[in-house]
């Protein structure tokens, strides 16, 4: 308040190097109005959208604001791609998931870090008849679904040789063919 007539009327802005500030009418709260590039918040303590860090070191060592690190699995046209403080990725695409969009999401398998989106994460597509509990998820890496007894293939879609009746939903049964009348 510059109208009081004392030397303490005007105080320096509580903002980083050179940022201007303003007093919010009514609440008398001081907010920085021109935070350094990439930062924002009342005291320039936050990173802009699309960046993460802790520019004032409020919860640990100072971490300058950096662009979201999401393994190239976010869309630059999206907003809110990562948590502004922790950097946790919030909008993974190409069927990826995880803190850094670095693994396949439930129900998908493959290499989330592959260069070509088509090579990243493919659907498990587990056969509902051959998979334990009709699960839809599979091994993140190999894509192997969890098969019922005597069921084979990555997606549990076939009976092992010598077995039949995948449709039962309880695994495959032995064929019980008479060895004398069978060809193999």
């Amino acid at each position, binding site marked *: 308040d510059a109208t009081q007539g004392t030397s303490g009327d005007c105080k320096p802005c509580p903002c980083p190097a050179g940022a201007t500030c*303003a007093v*919010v*009418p*009514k*609440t008398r*709260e001081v*907010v*920085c*109005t*021109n*935070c350094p*590039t*990439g930062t*924002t*918040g*009342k005291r320039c303590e*936050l990173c*802009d*959208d*699309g960046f993460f860090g802790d520019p004032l070191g409020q919860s640990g060592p100072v971490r300058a604001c950096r662009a979201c690190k999401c393994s190239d699995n976010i*869309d630059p*046209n*999206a*907003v*809110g791609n990562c948590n*502004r403080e922790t950097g946790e990725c919030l*909008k993974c695409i190409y069927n990826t998931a995880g803190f850094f969009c670095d693994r396949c999401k439930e129900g998908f398998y493959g290499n989330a870090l592959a260069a070509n989106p088509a090579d990243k994460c493919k659907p498990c597509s587990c056969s509902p008849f051959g998979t334990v509990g009709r699960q839809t998820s599979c091994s993140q890496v190999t894509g192997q679904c969890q098969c019922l007894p005597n069921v084979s293939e990555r997606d549990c879609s076939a009976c092992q040789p010598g077995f039949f009746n995948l449709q039962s939903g309880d695994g495959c049964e032995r064929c019980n063919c008479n060895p004398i009348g069978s060809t193999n």
Partner: protein
Amino acid sequence: TRPGVHPLPPGTHLLFSQSGRIEHIPLEGYDMIKDSAKAVLHLPEKVVIGVAYDCLEKMVYWTEITSPSISKANIQGGAPVAVIRSDLESPEGIVASLDGSHRRVIIDSGLVNPRAIVTDPPNGNLYWSDWNREAPKIETSYMDGSNRRVLVKDDLTLPNALTYDSQSSLLCWADAGTHKMECMHPGRGDRRVIMEGIQYPFGITTYGKNIYYTDWRRDAVIEVDRYAGRESDEFQPQKRTKIYGIATAYAQCPSGQNYCAVN
């Protein structure tokens, strides 16, 4: 203690969101009075995306994505009031006016990356854009969600920005992928390019002969003369960071009865 609105002086203004605040640029005629641009509302902890203005109630509405919510405040100096706080993930586009108690789902399928949404209340129409990279589109329906149709799907990439001008009945959009600004009368389908080679549009609004859009590459509000089809002015705030939504705060409300007023 909550921040409040710095009351807007009389006249028509542009409102736009940039990181933790909503700013205004007064308009004199159709020109931006850039020296008088100022923050209307400081929301330092928030990331404000969409901005809309309700002319009748003189309310500014906005969407915010850090704790996803929709809020409003009176432009003549009010405190922010949350309208919707639950069941939102990434609210982006917004159109006034809303009442949280009247929330209902209008469209819940066939949306991938919906962004801009605008209304034509006199005719009861709703328009929205979806920047789904596999199948970007601009759609329309009645304001209750019925009679849904795809209006535009060819030669679109990232239709981020969409606006409807009730005076001229023109639907205009700007695309960050094709780098074009285009308009059409939704009923006639007479699509026409206003400008090419624009950089990275995010928000758009119209006022009279001008179209104003926000640009992520230029961190600026750009004024385009829609008849001349060229840029006529630019406002770049001191703070260099992305500018998101933009809306026109009319001094005089556009005429036309609100279709929703009768039911």
